[in-house]
């Protein structure tokens, strides 16, 4: 089983049936099912979710990316604070990054005000947080290889040799 290829296929479209994936990879359905189970069990595949154009799905939806500068703690780095932040239900994702700030947090909400209040009341006040910068997403162009707001665009002639 070519696991790299299997993961590639799932990354592109996790809704393909096992039988279709099996055909594409030239494997049996059972082998594909077993491999996916293994990947899930070992935590390589963490889950499956849809890529949604949130602003299109809900006019009021807002998503923000928040940069956090923090004070690291001896021997623990940023872990404690990261764990606190990720336990908030409103938070979509938390990444520790290299560069001028430390954590990148994404959050979705139903209004700019809600998100801004969440940042100022829940995040900025945490011990160890030095500063926050909130960026609201204005338009989605591309996410996980999917291009937004575009018909199945093909610059090739509709029919050719």
């Amino acid at each position, binding site marked *: 089983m070519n696991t790299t290829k299997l993961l590639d296929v799932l990354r592109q479209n996790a809704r393909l049936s096992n039988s*279709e994936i099996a055909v*594409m990879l030239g494997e049996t359905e059972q082998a594909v099912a077993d491999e996916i189970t293994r990947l899930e069990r070992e935590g390589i595949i963490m889950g499956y979710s849809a890529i949604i154009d949130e602003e299109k799905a809900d006019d009021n939806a807002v998503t923000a990316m928040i940069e956090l500068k923090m004070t690291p703690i001896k021997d623990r780095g940023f872990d404690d604070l990261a764990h606190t932040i990720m336990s908030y239900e409103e938070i979509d994702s938390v990444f520790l990054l290299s560069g001028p700030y430390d954590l990148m947090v994404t959050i979705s909400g139903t209004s700019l005000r809600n998100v801004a209040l969440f940042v100022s009341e829940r995040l900025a006040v945490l011990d160890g947080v030095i500063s926050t910068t909130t960026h609201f997403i204005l338009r989605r162009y591309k996410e996980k290889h999917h291009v937004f707001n575009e018909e199945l665009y093909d610059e090739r002639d509709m*029919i050719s*040799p």
Partner: protein
Amino acid sequence: MDYNKLIPERISSMKPSGIRRFFDIAQTVKGVISLSVGEPDFKTPWEARKEAINILERGKTAYTANSGLMELRKAVCGYLKDFIHTEYDPATEVIITVGGSEAIDLAVRALIEDGDEVLVPEPSFVCYAPIVRMMGGVPVPIVTKAEDKFKLTAAALKEKITPRTKLLFLPYPNNPTGAVMRRADLEAIADVLRETNIVVAADEIYAEMTYNGEKHVSIAEIDGMKERTLVISGFSKTYAMTGWRLGYTAGPAPIIKQMLKLHQYCIMSSPTVSQYAAIAAIQKCRADVEHMISEYDMRRRLCVKNFNDMGLECFEPEGAFYVFPCIRSTGMTSEEFCQKLVFEKKVAVVPGNAFGESGEGFVRVSYAYSIAHLESAFTRIREFIGK
């Protein structure tokens, strides 16, 4: 002006490509999902594009040698040596052409005169017969069949050979059927041709796209065949470089010499920037090619399964990026099927008869599309068949 008087009968009687004709119909429908494109959906690999940018920045915009940059001809010869185990002299046995298409045109013009017969296995790409007729030659179709996996058989070939036969087109891997000729198939063809004075124009533009493990074999590498074979290929499909218009032909020096005269008078030299990009393609883009082929392979399997599940019998093609399902079970002709499909369900596929009469009863489906695109087209075709 009487334009009718102006145009020679040979030209006015030339039919426009059936692919084009169907394109004109499909274009009138809005929101069509097309499975009709005969070019890769990938972009040209970055290393090749980068080289083109470098070359433009350095202002290398002059003509090249008529037969192409020596460095590119050497790269092509090196590639052919690795890929089809056949050695060519870059100085006298290779021309860099404007796409594989130009090489096909040159071959016919260099070899064919009034009354010469040219064997064309069908279904196949649309350009062979019209060019042959333009030179006063006689295209002789050889029908290939689904039960033979659309291969050219020695028996069928033998049957069509006459004292006037001068050229055989060998378009494998095949557009539109996806058929390939394996070594044993080619040995049989070579056995028929070896004692003749017939030249083979091996149109191998899809040569890199062969599946199920075995690599492409060229007829040029079969014993005694190099001296009677023109290998025609190019960069369009392999490196997703269709718009760069660059191909090549390699073959016996006495024929190449004549073809070069024609090339020199009508083209001068192939696009310079494209030629430099092509060198980079050969030298640096192997991994990109492998990636594209593995993607095509997955889609190919998916297509075959889906069409067979729908009840449109689909032989498993082992080359190119097309599947060629049979639509006879619907009771429609190829043209009817395609027109109804495009008007009722907004999916464009190409009628098989555009590739010769023997393509009737089939449609050509290109899988040079993303899985998502293919899936949505399958859904529509399934609905179409279901009613």
